[in-house]
C-alpha cells in the first residue's frame, strides 16, 4: 500500500500514512465503525435521495410492486456504493502540509498540501481539503482537480496573504470527498497543522536628516581606490557613494542600486529597542504601526549594514550579523503585545539606540538620544 523511497522524513497524515497495514477484518470494521475524526454526512442531494427512497419504500410495501422494489434497491445500492467507493478512495490517500518559511502581512506566501496516492492500481479522485487560519480568520478549500494515478503525488497550492501580525496556526481541518455520486460527504480529520509567525507589514516612513542626528550620512564609501578593505556585504545605494562601489550584477537583478559594503567604511552601528510598555501604546493601531515601522527600519538598516542589534525591552537583545538573526527578531515582533512594564531607563538612553514612541495623529516616531530620526 505504501510507496515512496525516503518517506519517513515527511510527516504524512491520512489513512495511508499508517505505519502498519491494517488487516482486512479491521478495514472492513472501519466501514461500520468509523475511526475517530471520520464522519459521513449526506449532501442535500443525498438527503433528497434518502427521502425519495423512503417514499419509494412506502409505495413498494403498500403495492407489492417489484419494479418499485427494484427502484428502491437501486437507490439504496447507490448510497451504499457511494459510501464504499468514497471510503476506498480515501484509503490510499496521504497528505502533508507545507508552508513558506516567511509570511508577512500584506505579502503573499505559499501554503501547500502535498497529496499522494499510495495505491498500487487505482487512481484517486476528487478530494478536497479545508484549510483554515484561526488568527486571520481565513479559510480556504483546495481541490484535487485531476485524478491522481497510483504512486503519484501532487501539490495543491494556496497563495495566502496574511492580514494580521500574529503567531498563526495553519490547519487542515478536514479532508472531504463526495466522490463518486455526490450523495455522501465523507470527512476525515486533516490532522495536519503548522505554526507560522506572520511578520509585521512593511510600511513607508519618513527619514529626517537633522544635524547631529539621523543615520543616512553615517558610514560613507570612499572614493579612493584600494582603500576600501574587505568586502563584508551589500547595501542600498545612498547619495554620495562611489560609482565604482556599485554592484551592477545585483543591482540589475533587484532593480535598484546596490553597493558593496566594505569593512573599511567608517560608519556608526545602531541598535533597535522596542519598548512595549502599555502606557505608551494604548492605541492598538499605533502599536501595530510601530511594529511594522520597527520591522521596516530594521530591514533597511540591516541592508545598509548599520544594524548592530535588535531587541524587545525586557527581553534578550539579538546581535544581528546574518539574515537569520534579523528573522529571529521579526519572529519576536510577530508576537509582541503591549505589557505593563517593559524597558528600563538605562536601556532607552544607550548610545545609538533607536527607540520608538507614539506621536500625535496615530503616527510613530523613531528616536536616537531623544532626536527624532524617522517617522511613520
Amino acid at each position, binding site marked *: 500500500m505504501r510507496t515512496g*523511497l525516503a518517506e519517513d522524513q515527511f510527516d504524512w497524515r491520512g489513512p495511508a500514512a499508517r505505519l502498519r497495514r491494517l488487516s482486512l477484518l479491521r478495514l472492513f470494521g472501519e466501514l461500520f465503525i468509523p475511526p475517530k475524526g471520520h464522519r459521513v454526512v449526506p449532501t442535500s442531494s443525498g438527503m433528497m435521495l434518502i427521502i425519495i427512497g423512503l417514499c419509494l419504500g412506502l409505495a413498494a410495501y403498500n403495492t407489492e410492486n417489484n419494479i418499485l422494489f427494484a427502484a428502491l*434497491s437501486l437507490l439504496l445500492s447507490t448510497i451504499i456504493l457511494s459510501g464504499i467507493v468514497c471510503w476506498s478512495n480515501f484509503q490510499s490517500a496521504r497528505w502533508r502540509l507545507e508552508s513558506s518559511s516567511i509570511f508577512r502581512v500584506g505579502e503573499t506566501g505559499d501554503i501547500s498540501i502535498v497529496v499522494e496516492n499510495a495505491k498500487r492500481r487505482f487512481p484517486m479522485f*476528487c478530494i478536497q481539503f479545508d484549510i483554515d487560519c484561526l488568527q486571520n480568520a481565513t479559510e480556504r478549500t483546495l481541490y484535487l482537480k485531476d485524478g491522481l494515478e497510483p504512486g503519484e503525488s501532487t501539490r495543491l497550492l494556496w497563495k495566502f496573504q496574511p492580514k494580521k501580525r500574529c503567531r498563526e496556526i495553519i490547519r487542515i481541518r478536514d479532508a472531504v470527498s463526495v466522490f*463518486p455520486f455526490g450523495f455522501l460527504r465523507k470527512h476525515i480529520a486533516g490532522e495536519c497543522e503548522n505554526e507560522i509567525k506572520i511578520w509585521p507589514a512593511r510600511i513607508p516612513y519618513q527619514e529626517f536628516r537633522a544635524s547631529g542626528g539621523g543615520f543616512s550620512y553615517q558610514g560613507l564609501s570612499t572614493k579612493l581606490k584600494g582603500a576600501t578593505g574587505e568586502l563584508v556585504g551589500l547595501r542600498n545605494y545612498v547619495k554620495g557613494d562611489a560609482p565604482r562601489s556599485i554592484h551592477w550584477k545585483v543591482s540589475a537583478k533587484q532593480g535598484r542600486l546596490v553597493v558593496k559594503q566594505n569593512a573599511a567604511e567608517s560608519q556608526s552601528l545602531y541598535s533597535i529597542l522596542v519598548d512595549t510598555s502599555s502606557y505608551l501604546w494604548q492605541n492598538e493601531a499605533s502599536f501595530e504601526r510601530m511594529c511594522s515601522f520597527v520591522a521596516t527600519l530594521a530591514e533597511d538598516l540591516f541592508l545598509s549594514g548599520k544594524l548592530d542589534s535588535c531587541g524587545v525591552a525586557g527581553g534578550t537583545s539579538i546581535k544581528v550579523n546574518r539574515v537569520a538573526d534579523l528573522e529571529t527578531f521579526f519572529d519576536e515582533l510577530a508576537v509582541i503585545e503591549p505589557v505593563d512594564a517593559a524597558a528600563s531607563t538605562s536601556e532607552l538612553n544607550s548610545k545609538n539606540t533607536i527607540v520608538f514612541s507614539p506621536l500625535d495623529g496615530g503616527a510613530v516616531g523613531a528616536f536616537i538620544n531623544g532626536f527624532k530620526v524617522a517617522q511613520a
Partner: protein
Amino acid sequence: MLKWLIGSLTGLVAVSTLFNLEGHNLLPARVALIFIGSCLLFPKLYVSIPTWGWKVYAFSIIPLLAIDILAKETATAMMNLNTWLIIYRSVNHNSRREEMQLILLCLFLMVMVGILTSTVVFGLQLLIFAGLAAAFLVTGSILECKNEGSSESAHRLKDWLKSFSWFELSKAIRFRSAALGACLFLGLIGLSGAGFLVIPRIDIENKVTLFEMAPRSTQTGFSDTISLGEVTDIKKNNGIALRVDVASEGMTPSVPYWRMLALDEYDNGKFSLSRGLKDYLKGGSAAPRHARRYWQKKEFSTIPSDSAKDRWTFFLEPGVSRYLPIVGGFSQLTISELEDLSVGPQMHIFALKKPASKMISYQLENVDFQGSIPASSFDDLSAFFTELAINGDASNSNQYPNTLLQLPEERNSTRYLREIAFQLIGDDELSATEFAERAVRHLSDGHRYSMQISLPKNEDISDPVIRWMQSDLPGHCEFFASSFILLARAAGYPARAAVGFKGGSWNAFEQYFMVRNADAHAWAEIYDGNGSWIRVDPTPGSPSPTTRPSLVSIEHQPAESGSAAYMDSLRMLWYRRIVNFDEDAQKEAAVQLKEFITAYINVAELWATHVVFYLYEWARSPWNIWRILYMVTLGIILISALLIQRNLALNFRELIVAPFRRGDPIRRKAGKLLRKIETSFQGEESEKPLDWNEVIARLRRLRFGPKESWPNPRIVFREARRLL
C-alpha cells in the same frame, strides 16, 4: 461536454420507456425522442436555440398539462408533464441542482412506467438508465471538483458544443476510465440485485394501486360475444399470449386446453354469454368471497397457501382477454388483483373487471387435468333439466340455463338439426360421451379442417352453421364446435361453447409452456347429467371426448429450443425473478443459496479427497528406473522453465498485467524491488552487503534515470533479488 451528452442520453432512455405503454398517447414521447435525439446527434442544434425559445416552451407546457387534466387522466397527465419537463431539462442542465432535477424527473417517469408495465424491455431500459445515471453523477462530481466546488458550466458548454466532434470526444475517452466506470456500474448492479433479493417482503392483504391506465382493447375472439371466425382471426397472430410455469415435478396433459370462457346463448352463428350471466358477473355476487357458497373446496386469495406444493403460475400478456385461462380444476386461485376478480360459477369462468393494461400473473394450486369440469352447486342443473324434459320444450328461451339448450330460431334449421340428431341416436340410449363420439365422427366424416372457408348462399336458411353442416365444405374449429353444440342441444344434451387455447410449446430453456395466439381454439362442453361438463373437441385431429385425458411427464414434453425460445425464456426469467418475486420466492432463493453453497462445499470436498487419494495411489505404485527418470526429467524441465522466466527482465505475470498499469513496466519493477530492499535493510546498516549501495544506485537509475543511461535490467534485477 461528456456530462451533457450523458445527461441527454439519460433523458432519452427515460422517455423511451414510454413506448412500453401501448395504450398511452405517445405524441410527447415521440417529440421528446426526436428532439433529444437530434440534439445528441447535432449538438449545434441545441446551441442555435435562443433563450427566449426555451421561455416560450416553458410557458407552453401549461396549456398542454391543462388538456390532460381536463381529460381527467391523472396518470397520463403526470407522465406527459414529466416528458415535457424532461425535454427541457435533458438538454439544459448546467448545475448540480439541475442535474438532480433531471435524474429525479427521469426516475419518477421510469417508476410510473414500471408500475404500469412489466415488460422485459423495461427491465433492460432500467438497467441502461442506472448505468447512465451513475455515469452522469460521477462526471458531475468530478467536474464539480475540477471547477473548485462550482458546478456551473453553462457559459463554456455552448462554446464546446459549437466545436463538437464525436471523433474528438471518442479520442478523449481512456480505456482505463471506461474500465473503472464499467466496474462501478457492475458493482452498482450487483449490489442492487443483492438488495432486491434481500429487502424483506411482506405479503399484505390490502394493496394500494398507485396509478391506473385506461384498459387496453382485447382480442374480440376472447370476449363475451364471439362471431364465427373471430377465434380463427386470433390464430393469425403468432405472438405469445400466455406463459405457464408448471409445477416442477409431475405430469402435464399431453394436449393442454387453456380454457378462458364458456358461452351459452346462440344466435345465428354467434355465441355469447346470456344477459343474466353477464349481469351476474358485473354484480357483487360474483366477488370471490362469495365463492364458498357454491365451491366448498375452492379458495381465492392474494397469498399462496402454505400446504400446496403443486402450483401452476400463469403469466397472461396484456391485450389478450379479461377472462383468465385455466387448465382445469384447482383448489386455490391466488391473484394479487383479487378485488378486480369476478367469478362466474355457472360457466366456471374467472374474469377481471377490466382488461389488464399490463401482464397479469396468477397461480393455481392442486390443478387437476380431468377432461370435465364439475358443475357448481350454484344451480341444480340435473333437477332443472329433468323438470324441463317433463314439462316441455324451452329451448328457445333466452334465460340461463334454458340457453344451454338453445337452437337457431329458424324452423328449417331446427328441423334439420333434430333430423341429424335422431339419425345419430336412433333407438339407443346414449350417454353424453357416447353421443359426443358419434356426433364428432359424423362431423369429421363430412368435413375437413381448413382455416379458409366461403359458405354457399341458401335462401331458406340464414344460419351459417347449419349451412356449413349441410355442405361438405371444410371448416375451422368454430364451425365444428358450433355444429356439435347445436347437434347436442337438438338431441337434448345441454351444451356450451368454450374458447381459449389448445396446446402450446414447451420452452426447454426455462421449462414452461409458451402459448401463442396462434393456439387460440374453440371447442364444446356437454353436460353429462351427473354434474359434470365434459370437454368435447370436434375439430379433426383432436383427442376423443373423455374424462381422463392422457398425461405426459414434463421431461417428455416436445420442447422448443430455438433462438426465439431463448429470447422468450429471458422474458420469463424477468417475470419469474423480478416481476413475481415475493415472500415465498425470497425464502426459496435463500434455500437455493444454502443448497448451492452446501453442494459447492461437497463438490470441493469430494475433489480434494479424490486428489489426495490419487496422489497416494500414485506414490504407492511401483517405481522403476524409467519412471524415476521420467519424473526427474520432468522436474528439471519445470525448474528450468521457472528459473528462466524468473530471470527474464519481466516475468510472464508482469507482462500480462503490464497493459493494465500505468508507466513503464521496467520502472515499475525497479521501484518494487527498491521498496523491498529498503524495507528489508531498514536501520540495519551493519547487515547491508558490500554492493548494496551499488545495486540501489542501479535500481534507482532504472527507476528514475533516462532510458539511455539504463544498465541491463535483467542483470540488475537478478542482483537485486540476490540481495533479498
